[in-house]
């Protein structure tokens, strides 16, 4: 997969070098519930980062149609996350993700402790509950 500069990166390295808790959320610029979910997480990002030692990795599956839009979109929305690009859905398949949004919570030792498919308002409260138990 790639970072926002178009560089191929190794997701395992990204995760490995992050000793904290990780939220990994698969999304796309055309996915309304994904944008709603990430919008709420962005509003709470100070709390997640500073109080709960948690980084959000938003993995976009936008293909060639919209991938050039990702960076302007993310900046335009003032999102603060780490944004990664999985243009041909390779990581999505590897992580057995069928539909987006699909969100994983990964603990400090890189174990997946929680995963969730789809989004309705309030789901982020569940993520906070899981993260509080890990802290």
């Amino acid at each position, binding site marked *: 997969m790639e970072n926002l500069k178009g*560089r191929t990166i190794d997701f395992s390295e990204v995760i490995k070098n992050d000793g904290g808790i990780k939220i990994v959320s698969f999304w796309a610029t055309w996915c309304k519930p994904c944008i709603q979910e990430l919008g709420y997480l962005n*509003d709470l990002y100070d709390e997640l980062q500073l109080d709960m030692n948690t980084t959000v990795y938003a993995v976009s599956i936008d293909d*060639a149609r919209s991938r050039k839009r990702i960076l*302007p979109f993310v900046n*335009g929305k003032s999102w603060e996350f780490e944004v990664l690009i999985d243009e041909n859905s390779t990581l999505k398949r590897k*992580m057995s993700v069928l539909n987006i949004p699909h969100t994983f919570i990964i603990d400090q030792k890189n174990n997946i402790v929680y995963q969730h498919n*789809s989004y*309705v308002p309030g789901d982020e409260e569940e993520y906070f509950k899981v993260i509080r138990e890990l802290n």
Partner: protein
Amino acid sequence: MLLISLFVLKFGLLAQDKKGHLSGDFYAISQYYLEDEVIGATKLPGGQSIGINTALSLNYTWNNFSAGIRYEAYEPPLLGFEPALEGHGFGYRFAQYKYKSLDVTVGNFYEQFGSGLTMRSYYEPQLGLDNSIDGARIKFSPKGLDLTLLYGKNRKYFEKDDSKIAGLNLDVYLADYLESLNQKNLSLDLGFSVVNKNETDETGLNVPASTLTWASRIDLGIKGFSFGVEYASKGEEPHSLNGFTENPGQGVFISAGYSQKGFGANIYWKFVDNMFFRSDRESLSNVTSAINYLPPNSNVNTYRLMTLYPYATQGNGENGVNANLYYTIKKDTPLGGKYGTKISVDLSYITGIETTPTGAKTYDTKFLAFTDSLYYGNFNVEVTKRVNRQLRYVAGLGYINYNRDIIEGIPGSGFVKSLTFFTDITYRLQNRKFVRTELQHMSAKNHLGNWLLGLVEFGWSAKWSAYLSDEWNYDSGTHYYAAGMNFRKGATLVGLSYVRERSGLLCVGGICRFVPASKGVKVELSTSF
């Protein structure tokens, strides 16, 4: 690397895991079809009442080795999918070994070179599209470059197309070699792809067996700016979708963008001329036998009424621009409110290309020229605002000018000009309860006329929600309604609904399939483990 990623992700420090690990996913969508003369809903083409699409995928990883399979069944496929998909079997299986910067795969694999102009194999179950390549692939990624070599045949339904595909792709990241670029925070990437298709000529038309397609590209990034150009050229390839022309093909993508926190803008220009690259020259299907991918240069409109007029890529010739603007009005200002107000503006303008015949099967093209023949125009403005902890809304409008002659291939049907207003309001209540409503109105000249849509969704716990919607064509007085219930737990989703749906084009990434009107009971299940 991804293999290792998964391993690490799923199982922690995998070196300690001697048995490896199994993961997977499963989905099933089934519908019981009822007849309805008013909307023209029928049973399946074979006369059956029940259709089902389902697939089970399994991935196994053990140290540097991984393997996977996907078993699929379409018994028979749902309405709107190609009936030839009917059957069941292993649609996909692979084995992969990765050691340091080397990655070898045998079996089925998905791959994309650049933006896909020369080749893209991918899986899109919503379209019934899977053009995975069955063969072998080697990737080599030392510092500063990615090299890919592949050879194989395209999947078609549960078989393969006969043509043999061989490809090479190279990406070089100069900032890895030139420290001066790095110091200036400048990235400069170069890419080159070449793909050859060899297909035995069984048409008797004396067409060339081999077609070579190549592309080169450059991407530049400095601070908030980005700029990219990709040019592709395709050799002579007469096939059913291009009218067996003897012309070569060409394509150009140019993109430029700028962004900083709170503001982003992007413009994308795309010109293509005879760029459908096919693994079966006689196939008329637009969801099978594609070697490359031509992304549509239009917005993805997701509000239901606007999906009535989507754009489908015209790979034989189109020229278009697409511009997007994203802006956040700062929080703690009168217009920004407590959380900031997000605004997006999108514009798409796509025309045909200018060609002059030079023979029975050849022509000249005016490179990069727009024409008076409009294919598609779209302008959207959307505002998203979170007012407080409880209330969030999206409101906007979209204008579409849609050339039905070209996009649906129905000569004489003319243009459909439509203007749509939409609102999408979410209100949170106590204890995980919420209400979401959508209200949309489309006024349209020609075709089906005017529409009003209302939707109410109610969630009463973390696991349960239900919805009711009505899409009402008030010129004809026809109601298209849906009522459904969803259950969600972790990575499992179960949905049950009763629907009366209009016909229309279902498009993913500019590739569209026509879905006839239908009525009936739908059951959906998906899970990952």
